[in-house]
Protein backbone atom coordinates (compact mmCIF):
# COMPACT_ATOMS: atom_id res chain seq x y z
CA UNK A 1 0.00 0.00 0.00
CA UNK A 2 1.40 3.36 -0.93
CA UNK A 3 1.14 6.50 1.11
CA UNK A 4 -1.45 8.19 -1.02
CA UNK A 5 -3.94 5.36 -0.63
CA UNK A 6 -4.31 5.95 3.04
CA UNK A 7 -6.98 8.57 3.22
CA UNK A 8 -7.36 10.23 6.55
CA UNK A 9 -11.09 10.65 6.58
CA UNK A 10 -10.59 10.44 10.30
CA UNK A 11 -11.16 14.17 10.43
CA UNK A 12 -14.66 14.29 9.20
CA UNK A 13 -14.61 17.50 7.25
CA UNK A 14 -17.74 19.57 7.66
CA UNK A 15 -19.92 19.63 4.59
CA UNK A 16 -22.64 17.80 2.71
CA UNK A 17 -21.76 14.73 0.68
CA UNK A 18 -23.30 12.12 -1.56
CA UNK A 19 -26.76 12.23 -3.03
CA UNK A 20 -28.64 15.46 -2.66
CA UNK A 21 -32.32 16.12 -2.27
CA UNK A 22 -33.15 13.23 0.01
CA UNK A 23 -33.10 13.17 3.74
CA UNK A 24 -29.40 13.00 4.55
CA UNK A 25 -28.01 11.39 7.67
CA UNK A 26 -25.66 13.23 10.00
CA UNK A 27 -22.31 11.77 10.90
CA UNK A 28 -20.17 13.07 13.71
CA UNK A 29 -17.46 12.07 16.11
CA UNK A 30 -18.33 11.91 19.78
CA UNK A 31 -15.61 12.77 22.21
CA UNK A 32 -15.91 10.75 25.38
CA UNK A 33 -14.13 8.62 27.90
CA UNK A 34 -14.61 4.88 27.83
CA UNK A 35 -13.73 2.60 30.68
CA UNK A 36 -14.10 -1.14 30.70
CA UNK A 37 -15.28 -2.61 33.99
CA UNK A 38 -15.25 -6.36 34.55
CA UNK A 39 -16.35 -8.05 37.70
CA UNK A 40 -13.86 -10.37 39.32
CA UNK A 41 -14.92 -13.96 39.88
CA UNK A 42 -18.08 -14.03 41.97
CA UNK A 43 -18.03 -10.29 42.62
CA UNK A 44 -20.60 -9.01 40.15
CA UNK A 45 -22.99 -8.04 42.92
CA UNK A 46 -20.27 -6.08 44.66
CA UNK A 47 -19.45 -4.20 41.48
CA UNK A 48 -23.12 -3.47 40.91
CA UNK A 49 -23.56 -2.19 44.43
CA UNK A 50 -20.42 -0.11 44.24
CA UNK A 51 -21.38 1.57 40.99
CA UNK A 52 -24.90 2.16 42.16
CA UNK A 53 -23.49 3.92 45.16
CA UNK A 54 -20.82 5.90 43.38
CA UNK A 55 -22.46 6.66 40.03
CA UNK A 56 -26.12 6.03 40.64
CA UNK A 57 -26.25 3.50 37.87
CA UNK A 58 -28.04 0.20 37.82
CA UNK A 59 -25.64 -1.85 35.75
CA UNK A 60 -27.62 -3.12 32.78
CA UNK A 61 -28.04 -6.67 31.59
CA UNK A 62 -27.38 -8.05 28.12
CA UNK A 63 -28.25 -5.80 25.19
CA UNK A 64 -28.94 -2.73 27.27
CA UNK A 65 -27.50 0.56 28.37
CA UNK A 66 -28.30 2.41 31.56
CA UNK A 67 -27.80 6.02 32.52
CA UNK A 68 -26.10 6.96 35.71
CA UNK A 69 -24.84 10.18 37.14
CA UNK A 70 -22.93 11.80 34.30
CA UNK A 71 -22.26 8.51 32.62
CA UNK A 72 -23.81 5.65 30.69
CA UNK A 73 -23.07 2.01 31.28
CA UNK A 74 -23.24 -0.36 28.31
CA UNK A 75 -23.41 -4.10 28.75
CA UNK A 76 -20.69 -5.67 26.61
CA UNK A 77 -20.08 -9.13 28.03
CA UNK A 78 -21.27 -11.19 30.96
CA UNK A 79 -20.34 -9.21 34.04
CA UNK A 80 -18.55 -6.68 31.88
CA UNK A 81 -19.52 -3.13 30.92
CA UNK A 82 -18.29 -0.08 29.14
CA UNK A 83 -18.76 3.09 31.10
CA UNK A 84 -18.99 6.07 28.80
CA UNK A 85 -18.87 9.65 29.97
CA UNK A 86 -18.00 13.08 28.65
CA UNK A 87 -14.26 13.48 28.36
CA UNK A 88 -12.53 14.42 31.63
CA UNK A 89 -8.86 14.32 32.48
CA UNK A 90 -6.65 11.30 31.83
CA UNK A 91 -7.60 8.46 34.08
CA UNK A 92 -10.16 10.46 36.01
CA UNK A 93 -13.12 8.28 35.19
CA UNK A 94 -11.08 5.09 35.41
CA UNK A 95 -9.69 6.19 38.72
CA UNK A 96 -13.11 6.95 40.11
CA UNK A 97 -14.46 3.62 38.97
CA UNK A 98 -11.49 1.74 40.36
CA UNK A 99 -11.87 3.55 43.63
CA UNK A 100 -15.48 2.55 43.67
CA UNK A 101 -15.04 -1.13 42.74
CA UNK A 102 -11.90 -1.86 44.68
CA UNK A 103 -10.80 -5.44 44.23
CA UNK A 104 -14.26 -6.49 43.15
CA UNK A 105 -13.64 -5.35 39.62
CA UNK A 106 -11.00 -4.95 36.96
CA UNK A 107 -11.07 -1.44 35.56
CA UNK A 108 -9.36 -0.78 32.24
CA UNK A 109 -9.22 2.64 30.65
CA UNK A 110 -10.13 2.41 26.97
CA UNK A 111 -10.71 6.12 26.39
CA UNK A 112 -8.03 6.18 23.72
CA UNK A 113 -8.60 2.65 22.51
CA UNK A 114 -12.17 3.16 21.44
CA UNK A 115 -13.64 5.85 19.24
CA UNK A 116 -17.28 6.74 18.98
CA UNK A 117 -19.05 7.84 15.80
CA UNK A 118 -22.63 9.01 15.83
CA UNK A 119 -24.95 8.54 12.90
CA UNK A 120 -28.32 10.11 13.06
CA UNK A 121 -31.34 10.74 10.89
CA UNK A 122 -34.49 9.12 9.64
CA UNK A 123 -32.50 6.89 7.29
CA UNK A 124 -29.69 6.06 9.67
CA UNK A 125 -30.95 2.52 10.21
CA UNK A 126 -31.15 2.02 6.46
CA UNK A 127 -27.53 3.08 6.06
CA UNK A 128 -26.41 0.80 8.86
CA UNK A 129 -28.44 -2.11 7.48
CA UNK A 130 -26.11 -2.18 4.51
CA UNK A 131 -23.72 -3.96 6.79
CA UNK A 132 -25.32 -4.42 10.20
CA UNK A 133 -26.62 -7.94 10.66
CA UNK A 134 -28.44 -7.08 13.85
CA UNK A 135 -32.09 -6.18 13.41
CA UNK A 136 -32.53 -2.47 14.20
CA UNK A 137 -36.24 -2.40 13.48
CA UNK A 138 -38.11 -0.33 16.09
CA UNK A 139 -40.14 -3.37 17.05
CA UNK A 140 -37.03 -5.13 18.34
CA UNK A 141 -34.48 -2.39 18.93
CA UNK A 142 -34.73 1.10 20.27
CA UNK A 143 -33.25 3.81 22.45
CA UNK A 144 -31.21 2.34 25.26
CA UNK A 145 -30.45 -0.85 23.39
CA UNK A 146 -26.89 -2.03 22.82
CA UNK A 147 -25.41 -4.65 20.52
CA UNK A 148 -21.85 -5.67 19.95
CA UNK A 149 -21.63 -6.84 16.39
CA UNK A 150 -19.79 -6.38 13.13
CA UNK A 151 -20.00 -3.46 10.72
CA UNK A 152 -17.90 -3.16 7.59
CA UNK A 153 -15.78 -6.13 8.70
CA UNK A 154 -15.06 -4.48 12.06
CA UNK A 155 -16.17 -5.19 15.59
CA UNK A 156 -18.53 -2.45 16.75
CA UNK A 157 -20.51 -1.80 19.89
CA UNK A 158 -23.65 -0.10 18.74
CA UNK A 159 -25.96 1.84 21.00
CA UNK A 160 -29.19 3.45 19.97
CA UNK A 161 -29.26 6.86 21.58
CA UNK A 162 -32.67 8.21 20.67
CA UNK A 163 -35.72 7.65 18.51
CA UNK A 164 -34.59 9.90 15.64
CA UNK A 165 -32.89 7.41 15.42
CA UNK A 166 -29.32 8.15 16.40
CA UNK A 167 -26.74 5.47 16.98
CA UNK A 168 -23.37 5.62 18.66
CA UNK A 169 -20.90 3.27 17.08
CA UNK A 170 -17.92 2.40 19.22
CA UNK A 171 -14.99 1.03 17.25
CA UNK A 172 -11.34 0.23 17.87
CA UNK A 173 -9.42 3.45 17.48
CA UNK A 174 -6.78 2.13 15.12
CA UNK A 175 -9.56 1.18 12.70
CA UNK A 176 -11.58 4.34 12.97
CA UNK A 177 -10.24 5.92 9.78
CA UNK A 178 -11.09 2.86 7.78
CA UNK A 179 -14.45 2.63 9.51
CA UNK A 180 -15.42 6.20 8.78
CA UNK A 181 -14.55 5.77 5.14
CA UNK A 182 -16.75 2.73 4.85
CA UNK A 183 -19.59 4.35 6.78
CA UNK A 184 -19.45 7.47 4.66
CA UNK A 185 -19.45 5.46 1.49
CA UNK A 186 -22.54 3.62 2.69
CA UNK A 187 -24.20 6.95 3.47
CA UNK A 188 -23.61 8.42 0.02
CA UNK A 189 -26.82 6.92 -1.28
CA UNK A 190 -28.92 8.88 1.18
CA UNK A 191 -26.44 11.73 1.36
CA UNK A 192 -24.74 12.73 4.61
CA UNK A 193 -23.87 15.86 6.44
CA UNK A 194 -20.88 16.42 8.66
CA UNK A 195 -21.51 19.30 11.00
Amino acid sequence: MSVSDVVKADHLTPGAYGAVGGDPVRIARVTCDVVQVMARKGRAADVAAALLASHEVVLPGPGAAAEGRGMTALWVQPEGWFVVAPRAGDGVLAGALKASCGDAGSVVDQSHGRSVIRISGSRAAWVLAKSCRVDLHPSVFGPGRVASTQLFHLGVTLRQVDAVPSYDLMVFSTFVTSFIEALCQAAEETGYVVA
Partner: protein
Amino acid sequence: MIRIDCPSCGGRDEVEFAYRGDATVVRPAGDAGEEAFHDFVYRRANPRGWHVEWWYHQAGCRQFLKVVRHTMTHEVHAVARAGDRVEVPAAEHTGVPAAEHKGVPAA
Protein backbone atom coordinates in the same frame (compact mmCIF):
# COMPACT_ATOMS: atom_id res chain seq x y z
CA MET B 1 -26.42 -19.30 7.07
CA ILE B 2 -25.92 -20.71 10.50
CA ARG B 3 -27.72 -18.57 13.07
CA ILE B 4 -26.65 -18.95 16.65
CA ASP B 5 -28.87 -17.79 19.45
CA CYS B 6 -26.29 -16.42 21.84
CA PRO B 7 -27.63 -16.65 25.39
CA SER B 8 -26.50 -13.07 25.94
CA CYS B 9 -26.73 -11.36 22.59
CA GLY B 10 -29.62 -13.11 20.89
CA GLY B 11 -29.73 -14.58 17.38
CA ARG B 12 -26.64 -13.74 15.38
CA ASP B 13 -25.08 -14.76 12.07
CA GLU B 14 -22.19 -17.18 11.96
CA VAL B 15 -19.85 -14.43 10.73
CA GLU B 16 -19.73 -12.94 14.22
CA PHE B 17 -18.30 -16.15 15.61
CA ALA B 18 -15.06 -18.07 15.40
CA TYR B 19 -15.41 -21.83 15.33
CA ARG B 20 -13.34 -23.83 17.79
CA GLY B 21 -14.30 -27.45 17.11
CA ASP B 22 -15.51 -30.37 19.18
CA ALA B 23 -16.56 -29.34 22.66
CA THR B 24 -16.77 -32.84 24.08
CA VAL B 25 -13.04 -33.39 24.34
CA VAL B 26 -11.66 -32.39 27.71
CA ARG B 27 -8.13 -31.25 28.37
CA PRO B 28 -6.47 -33.91 30.49
CA ALA B 29 -4.60 -33.22 33.68
CA GLY B 30 -1.07 -32.04 33.07
CA ASP B 31 0.38 -35.39 34.12
CA ALA B 32 -2.02 -37.54 32.11
CA GLY B 33 0.63 -38.42 29.55
CA GLU B 34 1.13 -38.27 25.83
CA GLU B 35 -1.65 -40.65 24.86
CA ALA B 36 -4.26 -38.60 26.68
CA PHE B 37 -3.03 -35.36 25.15
CA HIS B 38 -2.89 -36.96 21.72
CA ASP B 39 -6.52 -37.91 22.06
CA PHE B 40 -7.44 -34.44 23.30
CA VAL B 41 -5.80 -32.76 20.35
CA TYR B 42 -6.26 -35.27 17.52
CA ARG B 43 -8.97 -37.81 18.20
CA ARG B 44 -12.40 -36.76 17.02
CA ALA B 45 -15.69 -38.58 16.68
CA ASN B 46 -16.54 -36.26 13.78
CA PRO B 47 -20.16 -37.41 13.87
CA ARG B 48 -22.62 -37.18 11.06
CA GLY B 49 -25.46 -35.96 13.21
CA TRP B 50 -25.51 -33.90 16.35
CA HIS B 51 -22.23 -32.29 17.20
CA VAL B 52 -21.41 -30.39 20.37
CA GLU B 53 -18.97 -27.67 19.46
CA TRP B 54 -17.41 -24.42 20.56
CA TRP B 55 -18.28 -21.14 18.90
CA TYR B 56 -16.54 -18.02 20.14
CA HIS B 57 -18.71 -14.94 19.93
CA GLN B 58 -15.81 -12.86 18.77
CA ALA B 59 -17.69 -9.82 17.50
CA GLY B 60 -20.23 -9.97 20.31
CA CYS B 61 -19.86 -10.87 23.97
CA ARG B 62 -16.53 -12.67 23.50
CA GLN B 63 -17.87 -15.80 25.14
CA PHE B 64 -17.18 -19.37 24.15
CA LEU B 65 -20.56 -20.95 23.57
CA LYS B 66 -21.40 -24.61 23.55
CA VAL B 67 -23.54 -25.26 20.52
CA VAL B 68 -25.40 -28.43 19.63
CA ARG B 69 -25.65 -28.45 15.87
CA HIS B 70 -26.52 -31.09 13.33
CA THR B 71 -23.82 -31.73 10.78
CA MET B 72 -26.23 -32.59 7.96
CA THR B 73 -29.05 -30.13 8.48
CA HIS B 74 -27.02 -27.44 10.27
CA GLU B 75 -29.96 -27.08 12.60
CA VAL B 76 -28.92 -25.58 15.92
CA HIS B 77 -30.63 -27.44 18.72
CA ALA B 78 -29.17 -25.70 21.73
CA VAL B 79 -26.74 -22.97 22.66
CA ALA B 80 -25.32 -22.74 26.14
CA ARG B 81 -22.63 -20.96 28.08
CA ALA B 82 -19.30 -22.72 28.34
CA GLY B 83 -19.93 -24.15 31.79
CA ASP B 84 -23.46 -25.33 31.15
CA ARG B 85 -24.58 -28.81 30.26
CA VAL B 86 -26.40 -29.31 27.01
CA GLU B 87 -28.93 -31.87 25.92
CA VAL B 88 -28.04 -33.76 22.79
CA PRO B 89 -31.04 -35.22 21.00
CA ALA B 90 -30.83 -38.96 21.04
CA ALA B 91 -31.97 -39.98 17.62
CA GLU B 92 -30.86 -38.78 14.24
CA HIS B 93 -32.89 -35.78 13.32
CA THR B 94 -35.81 -36.51 11.06
CA GLY B 95 -34.74 -33.73 8.77
CA VAL B 96 -31.74 -35.60 7.43
CA PRO B 97 -32.25 -35.44 3.71
CA ALA B 98 -32.26 -38.51 1.58
CA ALA B 99 -28.73 -39.64 0.85
CA GLU B 100 -27.11 -37.48 -1.77
CA HIS B 101 -27.57 -38.51 -5.34
CA LYS B 102 -30.49 -40.82 -4.99
CA GLY B 103 -31.60 -38.90 -8.02
CA VAL B 104 -34.43 -37.07 -6.34
CA PRO B 105 -34.12 -33.39 -5.80
CA ALA B 106 -32.57 -32.69 -2.44
CA ALA B 107 -30.19 -29.97 -1.46
